[in-house]
Each structure stands twice: as structure tokens, then as C-alpha cells.
């Protein structure tokens, strides 16, 4: 039992964090928005160079063989930066799912190109009504009646569903299911799809955790600088207490998020409840932090000039992404009402209670 990240885990995340601090500042986001482009190709090239596409794909399949716990801080960093490019959805969810079907020739071939960073893949999972980044993806893993189809986007009908978040690119995907598109039947697909949902929810939570901290940081920076009644507004108790309340939410979402990441591979009722708890806790932290930050910014908070709105919008979107509040609360309920409770079960796993 050592509930701390290893040096290696922290170092990898630091590298991503530093890169994003360099190339993904609000000014960069504004520039991209001005250009109306789907993604910043220069930034994406740098991210691809880091070789993280195969982070969660087993080494025997050409990936890095990392686990969710190794990737969770990277996803937090993406949230903190408001990264528009699909590092999290591609490397965190789509590729490990694709790798689960690498017995299929088409899947294996696509995986090779995706691991090399040549293309990205996205997922049309029943947990989400839309598909993210389908316009820039080479192919979509589509679930249809429980089975998984691999569909080249070029052969599908992609319909844009514009989001209020200028960097969320959502789509509906229509295609003709056939024996050729099918890569996994219902039975074979069930476990990988459940794992994909777990990863999707976990990394959405991680991004919201990053968003929450960014919102507090922006609020703190403004509160130190902005003067009213002859003092920085950050010296008023009301402003302090609002920001402290948001930070407390963040502090107690963090260990849940990290435990969820550490337990994800269990793939049981316990780990799923923990992931869902993390999703709820991080969404709450992001919500409180974003609203607090807007409030602290005063009238500025309502303007496009201030950066908080990027994070407010992303937080709203991710709250319902990979399952909303009701969905995740029920996953928690499934564990709470059906399994033993109490202090000795904090890190419980199904096997021990079988």
C-alpha cells in the first residue's frame, strides 16, 4: 500500500504538462478559434512525437503497456490546458479498445498506423449520443446492437453537431453495417466496451479535475491583481472563502480520481463504482470552481476576454460525456446497496468477496 505516484508516473505527466504550458495557452486557443481549424497541426505533431498514442496499448501489440494510473495525470494536464486535440480520447480510449480487437486484420492494420501517430481513431459508444473528432479521425469504432464495427470515416456519413465549446467537435455517424465492417460480436465486445466506458469516464473525470484547478488558478491570479476599495479583492474574506471552498472540492476529488485510476484494471463492481464516484466528484469540483472563478472575475467573468469561459464550457460538456450524473450515481448505488460497506472495504475487489 503506497498511495503515491511513482517518480516515473509524475515525470511523464510533467513532460506533457510542460509541453502544453508551452503550446496550449489561452492565446493559442484564441488563435485556433480565429482560424476555424479543427486542430493545431503543429501542436498535434509535437504531441504525436511524444509517442503517447500507444500509452495504454500492451507492449506485445506495439504500445507502451502503461496502465490507467500512468495516464491519469496526463489527462488532468490536458484538462488544465483545455487541449483541443484528441490525445485523451484517441490514446486513452479508442486505441486500447481497438487493440482489444487486434485479432481482426483490419483492426490490426489500423492499430499499427494509429500507434505510429499517422492517424487517429474515435469511438461511437452507447454511453455517448455523439462521436468526438470524427472529422479528423481515420475510422470510428461503432457499437451497433452490442457488436463492434470498424468504419472508415471516408465510407460513413458524418453529420456535424456543433457544441458551444468551440474545440469540441461532435458528430453523428451513419454507415451500412456489414460482415466486412463487423470486427467483434456481442459476446466478444462486451468486456472491451465496458473497459472503454471505464476509461472514458475516468479520463473525462481527470480532465474535469484539471479544469477545476485551472479555474481556481485563474480566479486566484485575478483576485491578487484586481483592486477594489483600495485593496486587492483577494484580500476580502468573501472572495477568499469562495476560492477556498472550490479548492476543498478539488482536494477531495483528487484522491478519488487517483484511486479510481489505480483500481480501473479490476473491472469489477468496486472499481466501476470508484470510477463513477470520481466522475461525479470531479464534475462537482469543475462546476463549483468554474462558477466561483466567474464570480471572482466579476463583470469580467462574463466576457469573452477572460479565459475562464473556455474551461466553464468544457466542464459542462464533460459532465455528461461518458455518462452523466444519473448514470454514474446508479453505478455507485449498485455497489453501495449490494456489497459490504465499511472502513475495511476501502480498497476492496470483487475476487476477495467471491
Amino acid at each position, binding site marked *: 500500500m503506497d498511495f503515491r505516484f511513482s517518480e516515473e508516473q509524475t515525470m511523464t505527466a510533467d513532460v506533457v504538462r510542460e509541453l502544453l504550458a508551452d503550446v496550449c495557452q489561452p492565446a493559442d486557443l484564441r488563435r485556433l478559434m480565429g482560424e476555424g481549424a479543427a486542430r493545431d497541426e503543429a501542436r498535434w505533431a509535437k504531441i504525436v512525437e511524444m509517442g503517447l498514442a500507444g500509452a495504454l496499448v500492451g507492449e506485445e501489440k506495439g504500445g507502451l503497456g502503461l496502465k490507467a494510473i500512468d495516464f491519469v495525470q496526463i489527462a488532468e494536464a490536458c484538462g488544465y490546458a483545455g487541449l483541443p486535440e484528441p490525445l485523451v480520447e484517441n490514446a486513452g480510449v479508442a486505441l486500447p479498445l481497438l487493440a482489444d480487437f487486434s485479432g481482426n486484420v483490419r483492426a490490426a492494420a489500423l492499430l499499427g498506423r494509429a500507434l505510429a501517430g499517422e492517424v487517429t481513431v474515435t469511438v461511437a459508444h452507447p454511453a455517448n449520443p455523439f462521436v468526438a473528432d470524427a472529422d479528423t479521425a481515420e475510422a470510428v469504432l461503432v457499437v451497433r446492437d452490442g457488436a463492434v464495427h470498424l468504419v472508415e470515416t471516408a465510407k460513413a456519413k458524418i453529420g456535424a453537431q*456543433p457544441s458551444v465549446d468551440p474545440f469540441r467537435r461532435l458528430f453523428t455517424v451513419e454507415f451500412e453495417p456489414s460482415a466486412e465492417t463487423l470486427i467483434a460480436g456481442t459476446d466478444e465486445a462486451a468486456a472491451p466496451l465496458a473497459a472503454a466506458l471505464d476509461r472514458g469516464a475516468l479520463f473525462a473525470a481527470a480532465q474535469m479535475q484539471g479544469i477545476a484547478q485551472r479555474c481556481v488558478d485563474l480566479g486566484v491570479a485575478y483576485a491578487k491583481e484586481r483592486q*477594489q476599495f483600495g485593496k486587492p479583492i483577494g484580500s476580502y474574506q468573501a472572495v477568499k472563502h469562495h476560492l477556498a471552498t472550490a479548492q476543498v472540492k478539488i482536494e477531495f476529488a483528487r484522491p478519488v480520481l487517483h484511486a479510481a485510476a489505480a483500481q480501473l484494471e479490476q473491472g469489477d463492481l468496486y472499481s466501476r463504482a470508484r470510477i463513477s464516484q470520481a466522475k461525479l466528484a470531479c464534475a462537482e469540483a469543475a462546476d463549483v470552481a468554474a462558477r466561483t472563478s466567474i464570480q471572482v472575475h466579476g463583470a469580467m*467573468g*462574463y466576457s469573452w476576454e477572460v479565459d475562464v469561459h473556455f474551461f466553464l464550457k468544457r466542464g459542462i460538456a464533460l459532465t455528461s460525456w461518458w455518462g*452523466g450524473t444519473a448514470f454514474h450515481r446508479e453505478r455507485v448505488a449498485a455497489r453501495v446497496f449490494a456489497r459490504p460497506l465499511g472502513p475495511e472495504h476501502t480498497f476492496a475487489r470483487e475476487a476477495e468477496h467471491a
Partner: protein
Amino acid sequence: MDVNYTDEQKAFRKEVRSWLEMHVPEKPLPSFDTSREGFEAHRAWERVLADGRWGMVTWPESYGGRGLDLIQWLIFEEEYYRAGAPLRVNQNGIFLLGPTLMEYGTDEQKARFLTSMASGDEIWAQAWSEPQAGSDLASVRATAVLECDEYVLKGHKIWSSRAVFADWAFGLFRTDPASQRHKGLSLIFFPLDAPGVRVQAIPQIDGETGFAEIFLDDVRVPAFNRLGGEGEGWNICMATAGFERGLMLRSPARFQVAARKLVELYKAHEAEVEPTVRAAVLQSWMDAEAYALSIYATASRLAAGGHIGAEASTNKIFWSEMDIAMHKAALSILGARAELLRSAPEAGDIGRWLDGYFFSLAGPIYAGSNEIQRNIIAERMLGLPRA
């Protein structure tokens, strides 16, 4: 206490309802904040209202009103929102400046400004804040120097609602350069097309541009444009702000209509929605009703000759928090669709809830932040000592 409408009040409601049924535009007008076209469409609507003498029913007939009391005003507002009639583009004029003019203006000023305000011929922006004077409004830096019966205005105003397209604005200026804080400020009107005025829109979080910055560079206006005495601006402005927050800025009917729509949205999605949302929906309805009842209490008191008190502050806190909660409930119901733009093919019945949510987030901030309101309640209502 009598909670029954009189026959006269019932007849009035009927009259308002049938007039609105005949005149309210069938299709919603385009936003008055995003295009000149939308702005002018709203101005045209103001003229239609004025023609029917519905522009400001509480005003004296001589200024285009009907001389009605606040209960009748509430009935009018209820019917107005019930009918889904357009937002009032001139709210800075008719709800904020108008009542203040009525109280502090000279007869000449009233004649000059009120009639054109009620008719929609002159639409008003407010110009309270400055970059360094937000919550701390008393630290206004913009100056007005009197030169032979003309003021020369200089300064930088910000967060001026409607200023992008409006005709006139009112704001606080320091007329005594040696003065500090609340003293030496005067309330002065200026035309937004005067030489030296530059207006720049502020893009908002919801993509609209309802606010603007105003740069004033030696703008000359006649001394006639000062409301009240020199140096009395702060007190007059507080009276305006009190009235704004207290009663007219947020008509209860607006929230009751929003609550009705929220209940409709909930009913349409009841099967998919978790039970906690149901409680939030019911709470929203209850809050909107509580707010309406509270305004009835205030209006009854004012109609009987009372004065507005700390309701200004309690109302502000209540409606701004209710507004956020209502929109959060709606977003919960919409789930994953909440983030879509209304133009998205799958948007369905998402309506304007997300924009409304962003707008609601500003509620605790403008018209005097809720932090300031809580101080006011604590100090003036509860008698706690100043810091």
C-alpha cells in the same frame, strides 16, 4: 389583507391580454444585442407598445403612460410575459432612468427625455462601471468639466448594456476634480453619437455582445443633461440602483414563465431523468412563486405609500441564485445535448437554456454583486457593524 383581484383589476388584465394577443409578433424578434436589425425590430415594437399606451403603464399620462399603480403594473407584466412578448430593449431607460428622472428631474428635463423614452424614439444604455470601478462604484474616474454651460466629458466606461446600438447613455462623472469617493460625482446623460464618443462591443461568454465599452474623449454636452445638483450623483444613483434591484429589473413574471417552461421540459423527459431533478424542478417553481409573492407584498406596500427598503438587496440575491438553479436543473434534464448549439441537427428542444445559464452566472455579479448585497443586508437590515 385581500388576495383577490378587484373587478377593475380583472378587467384590466383582460384588456392587456386581448391587446397583446392582437399585437405581439408571431415570430420571436432577433436579439437586440447581436444586430442592428434586431435592435431596430425591438425599437419598432416599443413604438407599437407606445401607440397602445402600454410603454410604461405606471407613468403619468402626460409622458405616454396610464398613471396606474404597481399592482396593475404587475398584472401588465404577468400578461406581457405570458404572451411571450419581446424583451424591452429600453429597460435601462424605462425601468432605471425613468423613475429617477421622474423623482429628480426638472419639468424641462422630464418633457425632453421621458416622452421620447416611452415612445421608443430614444433607447438608453447605462454607463455605471469603469475598468477600476466595478463593485467599488465610488471610485469613478471619468470627469466632467463645466465650461460655459457645457460639460466636457472624459473617461472610459465599461459593461454598458445596450450601448452598442442605443441612442443615449447615462453615467456618473466626477464634476469636482478635488473630490474623493462618493462626493463630487454627478449623473450626466450623453448621446452615443456625439463627437468624441467611441463604443466598442464586448463579446460575451454566450457569444452575444450585450455589453460595450465607451471611450469618451472631450465629449461636450449641455449642463441641462445633468440630473439633480452637481455632486448629488451618488445619492441619485443609489436611488436608481435601489429601484433597479428592488423591483423592476427582474419581473417576477419572467421567472414564473421560465419555471413553467422548465416543468414542461421535465415532463417531456420525465422517463429519462433522475428523481433528484424532479425536486429541483419543483423547487424552481416554488422559488419563482415566492419571488412573485414577495414582489406583490412590496408593490402593495408601495401602492399604499410605503418606501422600498432592503428588499432591493434581498431580491437581488434571491432572483440571481434562483435563476442559476433553474438553468442548472434544465441542463441536467438535457444531459449530453446541453452543450449543443441550437443550430445542431440533434438539438431538439434544447431551447436557450445554455445561453440562459451563462447569462444567469452573471446575475450574482451585476447590478451590485451579491457580496455587496449581503454586506448591505447585514449592516442595514440586521444592524451589524461596518468592518
